[in-house]
């Protein structure tokens, strides 16, 4: 490998030897094509005309009145496909195409990354296979259907907890056996190097745009930026635009599930210990001896017991703060954004909103906050209905 993929002591590439040549191949291609003019031009053009970038930075006036300070929403929910995931799948899909690969595989939790991969698979004419935990297949059936409509095959993984980590395990195994023609399109800024760096690179467009936009609208930097964190790709996309701006407070919101004092959550950075999992060193939800927990959250997209290595580093270095929001707070936030703004947020993104609501009345009214609305919530309406039936 050309680089070690370390963020402080976190990250790296802790994988079986058989995967090293594949990671080396991707790393080499990534460093080459990211500066290739033809690649960059095609990426820019498809970002604009296919994904619909740049996305608005929207001043949420009524939501701001509700919380008592100024909230801007980065509208990643308006990206084609309904979430920030398309930023990454377009970038990596193009990379795979330039590398001459014929097949894409991907893991998915909520189905957003699977859908975004299937979409790009159709756009760029790949044979696409999506690995998804059986529990997630059941709770995200609409997304499964959409993936199939795009021509992808969906592999239901029932081992373990039948969620995202099991889907990743099986995708990695499949990849080990099909390295020559298959590109593993990793969905979050986690896993072994070079994936965290590649995913960050294609998601950083969120933070670059948001920084430029807030300077135009407010003529100053925000006081705080907030995003939800599962594996952490939408968050690192936003955060990366502001890491050098020391005055900007950075907050990542994790899934507190049924409460962080239960075992039913995915608050990795809040409750985890450092370990090695899915190819990287970082915070991890695990038992005393190091067996990895089966995490739990109302939002399948955050349901992951690990977290990207750069988030581990930002926590350890103190640059970012990570807090949990539990399921009930998230459902409240989901409802409040719809009632105040007419925007249906993804349950994942609702974690960031829940934190904003927890700060209601606690911040100066002139405080400016940018929150990443990472995805839209159409996919979650059924789940919300189960928890809170309409009267």
């Amino acid at each position: 490998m050309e680089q070690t993929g370390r963020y402080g002591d976190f990250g790296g590439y802790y994988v079986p030897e058989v995967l090293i040549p594949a990671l080396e191949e991707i790393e080499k291609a990534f460093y080459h094509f990211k500066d290739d003019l033809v690649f960059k031009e095609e990426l820019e053009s498809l970002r604009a005309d296919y994904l619909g970038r740049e996305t608005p930075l929207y001043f949420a006036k009524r939501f701001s009145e509700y919380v008592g300070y100024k909230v801007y929403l980065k509208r990643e929910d308006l990206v084609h496909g309904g979430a920030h995931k398309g930023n990454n799948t377009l970038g990596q899909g193009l990379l795979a195409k330039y590398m001459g690969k014929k097949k894409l595989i991907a893991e998915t939790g909520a189905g957003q990354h699977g859908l975004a991969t299937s979409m790009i698979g159709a756009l760029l004419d790949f044979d696409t296979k999506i690995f998804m935990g059986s529990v997630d297949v059941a709770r995200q059936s609409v997304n499964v259907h959409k993936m199939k409509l795009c021509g992808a095959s969906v592999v239901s993984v029932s081992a373990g907890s039948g969620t995202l980590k099991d889907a990743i395990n099986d995708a990695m195994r499949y990849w080990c056996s099909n390295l020559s023609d298959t590109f593993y399109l990793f969905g979050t800024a986690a896993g072994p190097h070079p994936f965290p760096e590649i995913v960050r690179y294609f998601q950083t467009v969120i933070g670059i745009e948001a920084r430029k936009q807030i300077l135009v609208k407010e003529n100053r930097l925000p006081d705080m930026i907030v995003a939800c964190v599962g594996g952490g790709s939408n968050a690192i996309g936003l955060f990366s635009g502001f890491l050098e701006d020391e005055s900007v407070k950075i907050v990542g919101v994790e899934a507190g599930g049924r409460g962080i004092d239960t075992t039913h959550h995915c608050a990795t950075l809040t409750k985890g210990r450092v370990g090695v999992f899915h190819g990287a060193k970082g915070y991890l939800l695990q038992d005393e001896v190091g067996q990895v927990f089966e995490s739990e959250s109302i939002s399948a997209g955050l349901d992951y017991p690990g977290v990207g290595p750069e988030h581990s580093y930002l926590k350890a270095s103190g640059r970012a703060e990570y807090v949990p929001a539990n399921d009930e707070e998230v459902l409240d936030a989901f409802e409040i954004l719809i009632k105040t703004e007419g925007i249906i947020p993804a349950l994942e993104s609702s974690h960031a909103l829940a934190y904003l609501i927890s700060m209601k009345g606690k911040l100066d009214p002139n405080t400016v906050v940018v929150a990443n609305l990472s995805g839209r919530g159409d996919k979650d309406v059924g789940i919300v209905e189960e928890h809170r039936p309409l009267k």
Partner: protein
Amino acid sequence: MITYRQKFDSLDKGALIPFFVIGDPDLETSFEIVKAAIDAGADVLELGIPFSDPIADGPTIQKADIRALDSGVTPAKAIEFIKRVSDYKDIPIGLLVYYNLIYQYGIEKFMLDFAAAGGNSALIADLCIDDVDEVKAAIEAAHLETVHMVTPNTSDERLESIVEKTSGFVYTVAVLGVTGSRDEVSDLVNPLIKRLKAATKTPVCVGFGISKPQHALDVLGAGADGVIVGSRLVKIIEENLGDKEKMIAGISTVLKEFRDAIDNR
């Protein structure tokens, strides 16, 4: 305690190395299985500590991991198990383990406890050669030997570095993929054995997909010093969970077939 070198020097036909997950399906039965394997002619043992997310393993070994975890196996209990095995017979014992379990136990303490229990080497499936320095001091302090994996797609440059850091034997992965039984030995393995034999005097043992005596003869014929048989044996456990006598007899029979084939080659 016998070293790999002493063991391999004493063999002229090739080493038979069965693999089991410690505590599959439970610690007592697992001990009976390992004893039967030793009695059936195993030269070296490869034992795994069960992990929740074994990405280098196929479905057969993953199910074994789940059975062992359900029966309550921890790394500490696995080390006690190894002590019992080495008390039963002085046989080289290689461990296959995922890094997080060692990391949480404490790398230095793990290697010392494992060595004290009679273990020879700890191969960490998800720690590649670029990062083995993280465990080097602990391995040296515990006077353990080293076993590392080489795969058919390993570059010459990496292969050099791997064999240089390997003192026990080279764990030669016969396939591009994860553990599991296969009908034929991959055609990738013979060229790899040749590359390794040209690069090192350290014994070369082949695993992943060795499920029939003929497979063993093929790779030993190509110059390998030993074969590792895993999923084929673990499958017998899976298929006979209701009948432990049949399970143990089945494993014993298959290993004797391998033993006879190797001894008569």
